[in-house]
C-alpha cells in the first residue's frame, strides 16, 4: 500500500489528563494505528476506554503527552500547523445539536464556511449542498430557527455545519445516540453516501456493535486506554469471548452463531448480519431434514 495513502498515522500515542497531580489519569496508553484515505473506520470500547480522547487528537483539540500523530500529513504536536487542522478535519461531538446557536438554520450551517473565508455565493452553495446531503430541503429549513426543529432534525443541521466545510476527514462521536432505530439507520446511510460521493475518510465512535459491523471497513477496540484489537468487523467480532470480557458485545447474529457453536452445532463464526444468519441456519435445518 502506498505510504501516502495513510491519512492518519498514530505512533505510541499516550495522553495523560492532569499529569503530575493527584487526579492524573492515563487516558491513552501507547496507541499505534493507521487509517487509510477514504476508509470507514470504527472505534469501539466501553465508557471511559479513551475513544473520545483519541479522536480529539485528530483535529488538534488535544495534543499527545507522549508519542506522535500525523493527520493529513500534519504533525499534530506542531502548534502552528495544528491550527489549520480544523479546516480539514471535521469533528461532530456527542449531541452536536446542543451547539447550535444561530438564529436560522442557514446561518448556523454557514458559520464554518464563512470563517474559512468563502464569498457569499460559495457559502450559500455549500450550505445548500450540505443540508441536501443530510436529507434536508434547504428551501424548507434555511429560514427556520434551529430551536423549532425536532431533536433528530437539529442533529442533522449540526452535522451539515461540519459537512459544509468539506473536510477530508469526518469524525463522528456517537452521532446516533438517542435517535430511534429508523433515525439511526437513516443517519448512518446519509454519512455513508457522503463518504462515497466526496471520498472522505470517516471515523465513527460508537456503542452500537451493529453499526460498526454493517458500516466499517476496519475497526479498533480500546480498553482502558490501550488498543486491544484491530481489524475488519468479521475478524474483530469473531472474538466474542474477549469482547464480552471488555464489557462489549457482538451483533446479535454473531452472538447467535457463538451460542449455536457452544451447543455443538457446526456453523460459520464470521457472521455479521441477519441475512447471513438465516442462510447458515437454513443450511443447518436442511441438513437435519435429510438425515430423517
Amino acid at each position, binding site marked *: 500500500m502506498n505510504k501516502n495513502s495513510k491519512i492518519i498515522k498514530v505512533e505510541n500515542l499516550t495522553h495523560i489528563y492532569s499529569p503530575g497531580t493527584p487526579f492524573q489519569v492515563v487516558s491513552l496508553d501507547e496507541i499505534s494505528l493507521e487509517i487509510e484515505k477514504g476508509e470507514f473506520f470504527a472505534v469501539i*470500547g*466501553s*465508557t*471511559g476506554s479513551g475513544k473520545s480522547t483519541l479522536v480529539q487528537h485528530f483535529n488538534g483539540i488535544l495534543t499527545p503527552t507522549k508519542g506522535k500523530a500525523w493527520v493529513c500529513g500534519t504533525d499534530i504536536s506542531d502548534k502552528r500547523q495544528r491550527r489549520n487542522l480544523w479546516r480539514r478535519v471535521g469533528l461532530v461531538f456527542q449531541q452536536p445539536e446542543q451547539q447550535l446557536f444561530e438564529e436560522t438554520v442557514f446561518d448556523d450551517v454557514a458559520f464554518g464556511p464563512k470563517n474559512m473565508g468563502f464569498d457569499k455565493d460559495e457559502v450559500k452553495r455549500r450550505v445548500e449542498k450540505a443540508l441536501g446531503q443530510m436529507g434536508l430541503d434547504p428551501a424548507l429549513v434555511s429560514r427556520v430557527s434551529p430551536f*423549532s426543529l*425536532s*431533536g*433528530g432534525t437539529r442533529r442533522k443541521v449540526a452535522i451539515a455545519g461540519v459537512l459544509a466545510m468539506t473536510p477530508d476527514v469526518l469524525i463522528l462521536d456517537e452521532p446516533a*445516540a*438517542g*435517535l*430511534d*432505530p*429508523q*433515525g439511526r439507520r437513516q443517519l448512518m446511510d446519509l454519512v455513508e453516501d457522503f463518504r462515497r460521493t466526496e471520498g472522505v475518510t470517516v471515523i465513527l465512535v460508537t*456503542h452500537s*456493535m451493529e453499526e460498526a459491523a454493517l458500516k466499517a471497513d476496519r475497526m479498533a477496540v480500546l480498553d482502558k486506554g490501550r488498543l486491544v484489537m484491530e481489524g475488519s468487523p468479521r475478524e474483530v467480532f469473531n472474538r466474542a469471548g474477549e469482547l464480552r470480557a471488555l*464489557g*462489549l*458485545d457482538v451483533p*446479535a*447474529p454473531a*452472538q*447467535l452463531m457463538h*451460542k*449455536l457453536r457452544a*451447543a*455443538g*452445532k457446526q456453523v460459520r463464526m464470521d457472521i455479521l448480519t*441477519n*441475512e447471513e*444468519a*438465516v442462510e447458515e*441456519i*437454513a443450511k*443447518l*435445518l436442511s441438513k*437435519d431434514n435429510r438425515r430423517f
Partner: protein
Amino acid sequence: MTEFNVTGPVRNAPESHDSLLTTHDSNEIFIEVKDLTYVYNQGKPGEFQALSGVNLDIKKGEFLAVVGPNGSGKSTLVRHFNVLLTPTEGKVIVGGLDTRSPENVWEIRRQVGMVFQNPDNQIVSSLLEEDVAFGVENLGLAPEEARERVEEALLLTGLSGYRKYQPHLLSGGQKQRLAIAGVLAMRPACLVLDEPSSMLDPAGRAELMETLIRLNRSGRVTVILVTHSMEDAARADKVIVMHEGGPVLAGPPDRVFAEYMLLDKMNLALPAAAEISRCLRRRGFLVPDGILSLDDMVSFLCRR
C-alpha cells in the same frame, strides 16, 4: 388499538434468594389512563398535539415496555405518571389519586419514581451513599429508618461495595443504577424509566436490564420502561406500541411481535431472533411461534 390479553402466568416465579424480596401477585390496576389528550403550547405558536384520547390500564407489579418511533408520544405519556405533565383533556389516576388535583402531587411523586436518559443530570452528591440518601432525607424519617432504606437500595442495585465512591468515578451503567437506587430509597410503588440505556455501553445496558427484572420479579415495583431496544421490550410482561399519539398495539411480547406487518409499516424492527425466525418461515422452514430471544432460537435448533 389491537389489544391482546395476558392469559395465564407470563413468567416463572422469582428464583430469588434475597431475603429482602417478597412476592405479591395482583390484578389491581395501579395506573389508569382515561381519554388522555395532551397538547403542547396550547393556543400558542408551535401548538402540537402529542397524545390523542389514550386509554390504558397498568397493573400493579407489571413490567411494561413502551416502544415506538421518536415523536410518537412515549415520553409525553409516561411524564403524566408522576405529574411532570397534567392532561389537557381526560385524566390519569395513579394509585387511586387523580393527577389533576394539586394536593395529590406530593403523594403520587412519592409512589412513582422517574429515571431519565442521562444519569449525570440526576446525581447531586459527591459521595455515592449520600446521593442515595438525598431523597430519603427529605422525607423527614428517623435517621435509623433512613439509613435502613439507603442500605436496602444499595443492596437491591448491587452498589453496596461502592458506598464511599465518588459518583463521577463510576461507569455509565453504575451511574444509572445509582440514579435508580436514589429513587428506590424512597420506596416507590413504581419506577418509570425513559430510555435509560441510550447513553450506556453494552455491559451497562445488560446490567441495567438485569437490575430492573430482578426488582420487578421481587414483586417490589411496577416497572414502566420506555425503550428503543426491542430485545429489552421482549423481556417485559407487556409491550405497548405507540404511534402518532396513541397506542396501536398492546399485549404480551410474543403476540405483539407476531404483528410484524403492522410493525413494518411503522418502521419498527423485531428482536433479532424473531426477525431471523420470520425469514426462515418465509423460506419454507417450520419455525414455532414465540421465538423472541437468541436462547429461544438456540433451544429450538438443538431440540430438533
